[in-house]
């Protein structure tokens, strides 16, 4: 035989799935929400997204090639995904240079300083987002008016911010609610907010697609959203004057975006279902606490980053159910 046969250990077949496919499928799942934000914010949404994606990919390439001196891995789609998620988490009016700073922090600090894809303990896009939020609080909370709003202003406040201001001013929730959009508007995303977080409906559509393609499992999003609903529901039942009904919290802010796309980031979430349960409950509880009692109107980014920190611990102490283990 002239040709050499290949020898390798079993198994000799492999699934057609790959890291690249996973990344591109998540990106695909985000397209409906992106389309909606283009509809709502116009060209600005495209500018921010393209810029963030280009910056993330470029920074990943440059850092890997010239600082880490390794083969750039930009084709795996993870940098592009980080870019999209970063863009989804900022207002559509954010200045260009801030986006670049955010991308640099997300990729440089959040991801590559730990060794690149797979080694980062925190979600890179959220690291970038939180860095921007703390560094430039004014620009990060100036929400552009949507294209279809009737108000005559340049910037406005998100429903969550309105709620927080109202409650802080001592108004009862029922009164504040008068000025808030109806739940149906919240569902399909007729409200101001970060670029990609506004439409719960389209984010859920992407979730359905990812479940169908088996990119992620239902566990983490359901645990998080369930916890937010349950915890806020309890607060609301005890004191409806100070706490708003739970559905509002599911549909506003980044709850959907965070639960479905950010918390499920494979690298930074626990490996076992039991671990994911603790992780999800933790994110839900911290989110509700920050939203109701914290200084910021929105808290899911902080909640996810905090629970990201617990992930290694959960991986060490929460073991899967063993076959033939003690019953």
């Amino acid at each position, binding site marked *: 035989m002239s040709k*050499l*046969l*290949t*020898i*390798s*250990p079993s198994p000799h077949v492999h699934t057609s799935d790959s890291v690249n496919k996973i990344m591109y499928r998540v990106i695909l799942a985000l397209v409906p929400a992106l389309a909606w934000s283009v509809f709502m914010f116009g060209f600005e949404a495209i500018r921010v997204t393209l810029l963030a994606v280009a910056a993330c990919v470029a920074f990943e390439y440059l850092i890997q090639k010239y600082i880490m001196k390794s083969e750039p891995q930009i084709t795996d789609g993870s940098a592009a995904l980080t870019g999209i998620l970063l863009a989804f988490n900022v207002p559509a009016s954010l200045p260009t240079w801030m986006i670049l700073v955010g991308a640099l922090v997300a990729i440089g600090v959040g991801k590559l300083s730990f060794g690149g894809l797979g080694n980062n303990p925190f979600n890179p896009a959220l690291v970038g987002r939180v860095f921007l939020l703390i560094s430039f609080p004014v620009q990060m909370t100036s929400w552009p008016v949507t294209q279809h709003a009737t108000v005559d202003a340049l910037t406005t406040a998100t429903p969550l911010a309105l709620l927080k201001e109202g409650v802080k001013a001592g108004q009862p929730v029922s009164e504040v609610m008068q000025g808030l959009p109806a739940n149906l508007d919240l569902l399909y995303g007729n409200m101001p907010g970060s670029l990609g977080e506004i439409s719960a409906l389209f984010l859920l559509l992407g979730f359905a697609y990812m479940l169908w393609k088996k990119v992620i499992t239902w566990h983490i999003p359901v645990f998080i959203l369930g916890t937010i609903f349950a915890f806020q529901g309890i607060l609301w039942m005890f004191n409806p004057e100070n706490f708003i009904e739970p559905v509002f919290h599911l549909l506003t802010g980044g709850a959907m975006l965070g639960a479905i796309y950010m918390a499920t980031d494979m690298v930074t979430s626990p490996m076992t279902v039991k671990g994911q349960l603790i992780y999800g409950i933790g994110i839900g509880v911290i989110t509700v606490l920050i939203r109701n009692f914290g200084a910021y109107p929105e808290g899911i980014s902080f909640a996810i980053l905090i629970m990201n920190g617990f992930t290694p611990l959960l991986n060490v102490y929460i073991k899967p159910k063993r076959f033939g283990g003690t019953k």
Partner: protein
Amino acid sequence: MSITIVYTMIALSAIGILAAVILYFVAQKFKVYEDPRIDEVESALPGANCGGCGFAGCRAFAEACVKENELSALFCPVGGNDCMTDVAGILGLEAVTKDPRVAVVRCNGTCEHRPKTNQFDGASSCAVASSLYSGDTGCQYGCLGHGDCVAACDFDAIHMNPETGLPEVIDDKCVACGACVEACPKTLIELRKRGPKDRKIYVSCRNEDKGGIAKKSCEVACIGCSKCFKVCPFDAITMKNNLAFIDSDKCKLCRKCVVECPTNAIIELGFPPRKIKADLPPKPAVKKEAPVKKEVKATEENKTDNIEKK
């Protein structure tokens, strides 16, 4: 404003003093007596924590040295005789000297000498490949070339040569800790006595197949012909399972066996070129850059400037 600064300073100083007092008493209370000689011995050791002595690290080795009454069973291969003399001095014991050793890879099955018979496509690890099958050449005893020895070396003393696909030891860096010996699933690496000027003669083959089979799978295999065994004046060579072995403690580096070997399986390194060698085809000597030299105190060994490869 200034009063705030004063208050702050007072408060912080108070906390600092309080903490210091607490720490002092805690330290007194929980003091563990430790033989001060352990620290002394440890500072005399190289501090490489390589585990070449068989202990978990230099500290563990130092503890063991202090505990023992004599040092015959304990030896730090990295520090060598000088280091052990120091340790013995600290402990007031007698130093046991050992010949310095160096790792030698006993396979010369380069891509040219040993044609591939299949291609391995698994995890790049000799251990994985060896547990799967005999290897990607006809020789089941030879080097697999995935570099487990390189990964095991803490001293950067062994590297894969991309041309030959075989690991090469940098003598000056090798401390004979034995990590590569452990790592090699084919037990190709041996710790041999360092000859003067790093000269060495060894059978660069571990093939135990019968001559014909061995020769077929690798041009430079030891075919077990026993010619070297017969010619050796010092009884340094033993024959076992169709394979010759030169005992480095007995070998006097006379080079008689090298000429005798019909397959060039016996390798001589570090020698000046032979004067009369008409019967052997001349081979180009590969000169290698000498790696950064380590400071060596008393012995005249370890001082070759280059390694000549035959």
